[in-house]
């Protein structure tokens, strides 16, 4: 018997605190993924992941095909970087990353304009690989977390003992973003195949897909396709921010919390995002490196041709916007966000590239931009941030210690546990930059401990 939507919502699991955000997913959640025409050039940064910047393995003048390695390093703490188009390397030099810094990048002029997706076929025996082989493929094929900081996946999955449970994170809790959602619907087999590979890699005997109830079609198709696999289960989780954070998802699904400073593996789970899981399948089973991805291009009614687009990594934001009819000339006073509206980065130049962890590009018109004061407003002790912090912290007190220049005092308040969800700033009625202060405190502590 089909379960009604309201029934699913009532039963949906969740975590304490957090907050309801206006989803704004309706702009793009019904739009099938489209491949944009290939850009005339791409700027592929040699650091798109948490870890070391890799060394270029090509030089100007070299011909490369999409999928060729252009950067790598003999170090565990990095992930290989690949050409995302077929063409000629024109420069290897630092390029603006969008956050004010320059990152060494490989610029490739596209020579082959074919819009056809290159054909990849399943390789024989992909189901039977052992852990070391899988980890090697993940590093060489450039698989990193495709939401957030881009943590190299081969490091996450290099577990020494069996981890009983895999959680595939399909919560996609940030407003506007729908790339995971479309991936789960349109590449369901890849998501499930990726889950099988991870389970094999970490020795898991159970896999749970955690999907927010605002994606009933994804829940249904995943249920349908895992029906005959007793090891797999789809668990609808409540629509609440930040449901997609590892520890809140873990809490919703298992009811367990890793200890302070701990990791999800401490309670027997590994959490992987749905798009990353699909990329793992494509790398391991099809031999396709991570060199293109789906991004959501949207905004509060500001993008006429908003949608979900498949683009090569290294495509500039300028190209993405112009190819769907958003002209740079019209963007004075706009804010362009790479990522989601809660955790994304407001880029300082349209020449910043789409990178592996880029979930979307949001176009915020002046009317949607919150003014930011040059001063720091005081806390008026309304307790909103305390009541909503998903990690159960006291962001108000932490921010006051940081403001006073004594972040050490905030260590006892577990500042390091902050997941940077930005709820504390979002709710603060006094427009205090609480999140920013907490993050600054974390950075100060990192520096001082060096």
């Amino acid at each position, binding site marked *: 018997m089909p379960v009604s939507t309201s029934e699913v919502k009532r039963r949906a699991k969740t975590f304490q605190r957090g907050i309801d955000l206006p989803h704004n997913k309706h702009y793009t959640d019904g739009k099938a993924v489209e491949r944009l025409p290939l850009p005339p050039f791409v700027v592929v940064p040699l650091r798109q992941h948490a870890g070391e910047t890799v060394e270029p393995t090509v030089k100007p003048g070299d011909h490369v095909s999409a999928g060729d390695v252009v950067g790598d390093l003999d170090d565990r703490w990095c992930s290989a970087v690949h050409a995302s188009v077929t063409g000629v390397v024109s420069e290897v030099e630092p390029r603006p990353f969008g956050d004010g810094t320059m990152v060494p990048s490989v610029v490739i002029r596209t020579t082959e304009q074919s819009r056809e997706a290159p054909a990849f076929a399943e390789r024989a025996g992909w189901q039977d690989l052992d852990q070391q082989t899988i980890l090697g493929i993940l590093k060489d094929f450039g698989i990193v977390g495709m939401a957030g900081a881009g943590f190299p996946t081969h490091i996450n999955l290099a577990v020494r003992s069996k981890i009983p449970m895999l959680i595939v994170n399909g919560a996609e809790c940030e407003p506007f973003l729908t790339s995971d959602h479309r991936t789960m619907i349109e590449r369901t087999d890849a998501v499930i195949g990726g889950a099988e590979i991870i389970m094999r890699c970490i020795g898991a005997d159970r896999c749970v897909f955690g999907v927010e109830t605002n994606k009933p079609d994804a829940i249904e198709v995943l249920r349908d396709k895992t029906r005959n696999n007793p090891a797999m289960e789809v668990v609808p989780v409540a629509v609440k921010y930040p449901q997609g954070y590892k520890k809140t998802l873990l809490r919703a699904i298992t009811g367990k919390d890793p200890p302070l400073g701990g990791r999800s593996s401490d309670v027997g789970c590994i959490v992987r995002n749905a798009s990353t899981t699909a990329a793992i399948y494509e790398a391991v089973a099809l031999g396709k490196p991570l060199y293109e991805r789906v991004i959501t291009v949207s905004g509060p009614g500001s993008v006429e041709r908003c949608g979900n687009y498949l683009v090569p990594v290294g495509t500039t934001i300028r190209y993405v916007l112009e190819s769907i009819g958003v002209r740079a*000339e019209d963007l004075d006073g706009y804010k*362009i966000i790479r990522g989601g*509206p809660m955790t994304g980065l407001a880029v300082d130049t349209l020449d910043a590239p789409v990178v592996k962890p880029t979930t979307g590009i949001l176009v915020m018109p002046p009317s949607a*931009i919150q003014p930011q004061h040059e001063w720091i407003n*005081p806390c008026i002790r309304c307790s909103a941030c305390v009541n909503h912090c998903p990690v*159960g912290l006291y962001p108000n007190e932490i921010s006051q210690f940081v403001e006073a220049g004594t972040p050490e005092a905030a260590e006892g308040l577990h500042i390091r546990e902050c997941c940077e969800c930005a709820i504390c*700033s*979002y709710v603060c*009625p006094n427009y205090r930059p609480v999140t920013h202060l907490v993050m600054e405190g974390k950075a100060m502590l990192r520096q001082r401990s060096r």
Partner: protein
Amino acid sequence: MYNPKLVVTRAPHIKIKVENTRQIMLEVILALLPATAMGIYLFGGNAAAVVVAAVVAAIVTEAAVDRRFSNPSEIFGDGSAALTGLLLALSLPPSIAPGYAAAGSVAAILFGKVLQGGLGKNLFNPALVGRAVMMVIWPAAMTTWVSPFDGATSATPLISGEATLSALFLGTVPGSIGETSALLLLAGALFLNIRGRIHWQIPFFFVLGSVLTAVAFRANPLAHVFGGGLMIGALFMATDWVTSPMTPNGKVIFGIGCGVLTVLIRELGRYPEGVTYAILLMNATVPLLDRYLKHKALGEA
């Protein structure tokens, strides 16, 4: 290639709707307006002058010391100064000179807020600090109460014991400008509660604490609850975010403490000013209450 001027600000890039300090303060002021209007209706022109003087003095004082609000278009600031002035005015006797009220407001902002580090850092409720200062300087003027309609002066009803309970509830009794009608104050507080601005714990346990203590002293609990400014104190002063505990359990203890102390001061001290000093004393316990009643972080053992 055109390079537009992009706005670069920190995450988050969206903001919760409606919630900002000024709007919240305006809501609290709105909630107090019925009681204010009733006070002016009952006590006439001088009451109106006292309200205006206190509010204007508070706003001007704040603007003079806080650079954020010194711009004339920003003079209303975050609205907290106006609220402090209004609360102070409502707690004053209707016959007091408007000049005294203005001076009280200046004291409330300076001693109650600015000198304690500004809004958010102040330990004590600014309006009550202003009131306490006035009690010291003008004790006589602060305890002269006029009866509405006939203008006869008397002590506060708590002391005289003449007023009927229904008159206390409706506010047609001698008392301060705004704190006489429990009905209108309750309506305002209910509005704030529905809007999520104040929680029920502090007023509820404030009243409960005072009733139980009154019973222990064999005093009339209703006279304690509806007289001598307990209602405005419990509903609008003790619930001030800045000077009350953040945690639900802390609010319970804080409320009970305020109620018990109010009646103790009144019964043992034969002094109608129980509410002011009870809340100020409990304000001092807030850092401790907040510190020891914290909830645990995710994964904290």
